[in-house]
C-alpha cells in the first residue's frame, strides 16, 4: 500500500498511441504498394521497408527513456493485460516459430502441431500455476525470485548462470533468423546484417530498459500481426473468397488428402522416438499433409510437446513480463491473451502452409496438361523455390522449397504485388527483433542484478543500478552478435534446445517453490544444477550419436532427474526458517503488498538506520 496507486496507473492514451503506430505501418505498406505500381526502383522500396520500421522502433524506444528503477526494470508495473499478452505471444514465437514454423508445417504437416500444442500448453500451465504467484512476488528476474524466495545467494548466482545459457541460445537464433529474413530486403553480408540488428536492439532498449522494450515490443507485435493476418486474409479472399484464412482452408486440406498420395507422396512410418523437423535450406516434400506421425513419432510428439511447454512456461525471458502487469488479476488475464494471440498466429501460419501445399500440388498436377505456372519462375528468381526447368517431369521430388522461404512464397504464388512479400518480411523481422530484445533485456537484467550485485541483497543506488544495466544491454547485444557470427546453427534447433534446457533446469524448482512448502534451498540448488547438467549432457550425447534420442527432445529427460533430486534432498534434510514460510504464505494470497518491493524497502530502511 506504501507503493501508491499513482505509480501503477495505466496510461489512458495507450490505445491512441498504438493506433497511430498501426496507421503508420499500414500507410507505409500502402505507399510502397503505390510506388511499386508506379515502377519505382525496387531496391529503394526494399530498403525503405527495412529501415522505416526500424527507425520508428528506435524512436519509440528512445522516447520512453527512464532512469527510475521501477520503470527501468519492470515498466513501472503499468502494462495492461492485453498489451502484456500480445507481447508474451510474440516473444514466445519470435521470428523462428513464424518463419521456420511455417516451413515446418509445410514439410511436416500434422507433425508440426507439436509447436502449437507445446506453446499453448506452456501458456496454460504458466497462467494457472506460475504467473499469478510470480506477479505477487514481483521480482525483476527469475534468479532474484528464487534467491529471495529461499534466502540463498548461491541459488541466486547458480540460477543466473543456468538461465543465461538458454537466453543466449535464443538471442543467437533470433539474430540469425532476423538476418536471414532481412537479407531478402537489403543486400549486405549476413554478418553485417547481424551486427545491424544487434545495434538496433541495443539502441531501442538501452535507454529505457524494460520500459523501452515493452512499448517497442508492443509496436513490433502489432506490426507482426498486421502483416501476418493482413496477407493471409488477402490470400484467403482471393483463393477461397472467405476472409478467415484459419478456417477457410478446409476444402483445400481435403483436396490434399485426396490427391497427394495419388501424385506420388507416400505415407511414411517412423519409429516412435523420431523427431525430424525440417532443417535449414531447400528440401522436397516427403509426406502427405494430414498424415500424423510421419516425421515425428507418437512418443516423441508427446515428449516434444512437454519439452516446449515446460520451457515456455518458465522461460526467464518471458516470466519477467508478468511482473510488469498492474495486478495479479491482470497477470492472469494477460496469460489468457497470450494464449489467444499465440494460437491465432500459429493457426494462421498453418493455413499459409496449407495454401502453399495446394499451390505445389496444383503445379505437380497441371504439369501434365501444360507449361509450368509463372509464379514458380518468379519464386525461383527470388530464391524461394528451386527446380530444374529442363526436366521432363518435375513431380514432388523435383520441386524443392526453402524452409525459411515458404512464408514469403505465398504472395508470390498468389500473384500479389511484391509489396505483400515485403510487408511479410518486415513483420517477421519485427518478430525476430521482439524476441531478440526480450532476451537481451532479460539477460542484461540477470547479469546486472544477480551476478554483479548477486552477493548482497541490498540494491545498489538507483543511478548505478540503471547504468550497470545499460552497459550490460550493450555487452549482451555484442555477445549475441558474436555468437551468431561465429557459430551459425539452425535457429529452430537452437530454440528447441533452449526451451528443453529451461524446462529441465527451472521448471521443477519453480513449480515446487510455490506449491511445496518443504522445498529447501539446498534442494533447489541441486534441482537447478542437476537439471541443467543432465539436459546439457543429454543434448551433447545425442548430437555426438551416443544417445539414441533426437537432441530437441533429449534435454527434457533431465526434468525427472532434477525433480527427483530436489524432492529427495529436501525430504532427507528438512530445514525450515520462519521467514521463508512467511514468504510462501504471502505468495499464495493475491491481496496485499508486492513482496519484492516490500523487502527492498525494508533493506533500504535497515541500511538507513545503520549508517
Amino acid at each position, binding site marked *: 500500500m506504501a507503493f501508491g496507486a499513482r505509480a501503477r496507473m495505466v496510461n489512458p492514451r495507450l490505445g491512441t498511441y498504438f493506433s497511430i503506430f498501426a496507421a503508420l505501418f499500414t500507410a507505409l505498406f500502402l505507399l510502397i504498394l503505390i510506388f511499386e505500381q508506379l515502377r519505382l526502383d525496387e531496391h529503394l522500396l526494399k530498403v525503405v521497408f527495412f529501415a522505416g520500421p526500424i527507425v520508428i522502433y528506435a524512436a519509440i524506444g528512445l522516447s520512453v527513456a527512464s532512469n527510475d528503477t521501477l520503470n527501468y526494470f519492470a515498466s513501472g508495473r503499468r502494462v495492461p493485460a492485453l498489451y502484456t499478452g500480445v507481447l508474451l505471444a510474440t516473444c514466445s514465437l519470435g521470428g523462428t516459430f513464424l518463419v521456420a514454423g511455417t516451413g515446418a508445417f509445410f514439410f511436416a504437416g500434422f507433425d508440426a*502441431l507439436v509447436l502449437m*500444442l507445446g506453446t499453448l500448453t506452456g501458456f496454460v500451465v504458466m497462467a494457472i500455476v506460475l504467473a499469478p504467484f510470480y506477479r505477487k512476488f514481483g521480482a525483476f528476474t527469475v534468479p532474484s525470485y528464487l534467491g529471495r524466495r529461499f534466502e540463498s545467494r548461491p541459488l541466486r548466482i547458480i540460477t543466473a548462470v543456468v538461465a543465461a545459457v538458454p537466453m543466449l541460445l535464443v538471442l543467437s537464433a533470433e539474430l540469425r533468423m532476423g538476418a536471414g529474413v532481412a537479407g531478402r530486403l537489403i543486400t549486405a553480408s549476413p554478418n553485417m546484417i547481424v551486427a545491424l540488428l544487434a545495434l538496433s536492439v541495443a539502441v531501442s532498449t538501452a535507454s529505457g530498459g524494460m520500459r523501452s522494450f515493452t512499448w517497442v515490443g508492443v509496436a513490433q507485435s502489432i506490426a507482426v500481426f498486421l502483416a501476418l493476418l493482413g496477407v493471409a486474409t488477402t490470400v484467403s479472399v482471393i483463393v477461397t473468397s472467405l476472409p478467415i484464412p484459419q478456417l477457410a482452408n*478446409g476444402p483445400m*486440406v*481435403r483436396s490434399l*488428402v485426396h490427391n497427394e498420395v495419388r501424385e506420388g507422396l507416400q505415407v511414411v512410418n517412423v519409429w516412435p522416438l523420431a523427431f525430424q523437423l525440417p532443417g535449414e535450406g531447400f528440401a522436397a516434400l516427403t509426406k502427405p499433409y494430414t498424415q500424423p506421425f510421419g516425421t515425428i513419432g507418437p512418443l516423441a510428439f508427446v515428449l516434444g510437446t512437454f519439452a516446449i511447454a515446460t520451457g515456455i512456461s518458465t522461460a526467464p525471458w518471458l516470466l519477467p513480463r508478468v511482473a510488469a502487469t498492474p495486478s495479479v488479476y491482470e497477470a492472469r488475464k494477460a496469460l489468457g491473451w497470450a494464449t489467444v494471440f499465440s494460437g*491465432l498466429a500459429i493457426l494462421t501460419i498453418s493455413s499459409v502452409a496449407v495454401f502453399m501445399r495446394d499451390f505445389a500440388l496444383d503445379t505437380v498436377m497441371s504439369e501434365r496438361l501444360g507449361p509450368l505456372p509463372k509464379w514458380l519462375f518468379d519464386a525461383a528468381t527470388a530464391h524461394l523455390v528451386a527446380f530444374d526447368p529442363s526436366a521432363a517431369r518435375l513431380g514432388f521430388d523435383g520441386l524443392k522449397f526453402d524452409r525459411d522461404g515458404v512464408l514469403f512464397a505465398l504472395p508470390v504464388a498468389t500473384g500479389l504485388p511484391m509489396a505483400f512479400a515485403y510487408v511479410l518480411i518486415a513483420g517477421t523481422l519485427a518478430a525476430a527483433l521482439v524476441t531478440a530484445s526480450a532476451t537481451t533485456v532479460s539477460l542484461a537484467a540477470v547479469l546486472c542484478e544477480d551476478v554483479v550485485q548477486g552477493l548482497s541483497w541490498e540494491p545498489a543506488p538507483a543511478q548505478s543500478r540503471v547504468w550497470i544495466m545499460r552497459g550490460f544491454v550493450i555487452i549482451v547485444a555484442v555477445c549475441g552478435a558474436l555468437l551468431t557470427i561465429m557459430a551459425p546453427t539452425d535457429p529452430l534447433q537452437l530454440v528447441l534446445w533452449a526451451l528443453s534446457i529451461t524446462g529441465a533446469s527451472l521448471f521443477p524448482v519453480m513449480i515446487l517453490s510455490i506449491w511445496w512448502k518443504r522445498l529447501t534451498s539446498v534442494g533447489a540448488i541441486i534441482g537447478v544444477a542437476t537439471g541443467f547438467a543432465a539436459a546439457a549432457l543429454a543434448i551433447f550425447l545425442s548430437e555426438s550419436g551416443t544417445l539414441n534420442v533426437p537432441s530437441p527432445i533429449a534435454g527434457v529427460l533431465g526434468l525427472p532427474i532434477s525433480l527427483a533430486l530436489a524432492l529427495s534432498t529436501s525430504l532427507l534434510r528438512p530445514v525450515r526458517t520462519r521467514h521463508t514460510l512467511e514468504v510462501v504464505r504471502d505468495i499464495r494470497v*493475491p491481496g*496485499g503488498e508486492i513482496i519484492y518491493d516490500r523487502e527492498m524497502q525494508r533493506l533500504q530502511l535497515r541500511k538507513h538506520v545503520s549508517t
Partner: protein
Amino acid sequence: MIERKERKPYWRHTKWQVLASLIPFLAIVVVLPLYSQQLNSSRFLGFPLGYFLAAHGFFVIAVVTVASYVNRQNAIDHWHGAHEDM
C-alpha cells in the same frame, strides 16, 4: 487483507480449482494427437476431423481453460477476501 483463519480454506479451494483446470487439459494434450489417425477418416468443414481437433479444437480448449480458470479463481479470491484492493 485476508483474515488469518481464512488462509487454509482459501488455499484448499485454490488447489482444487487448479487441479480441476489442469488435469483434464493435460489429459487432452496427451490423448488428442494419439487418436487423430482414427479420427481423420471423418470430416468437419472439409478438414479431416483429427487434424481439425488437434489444431483448431485444441486452440479453443486452451482459451476456454484459461478463461474459465481466471473467472473461477477471481471468484474464489473474492469469496475468501483474498483479492487485491484496487
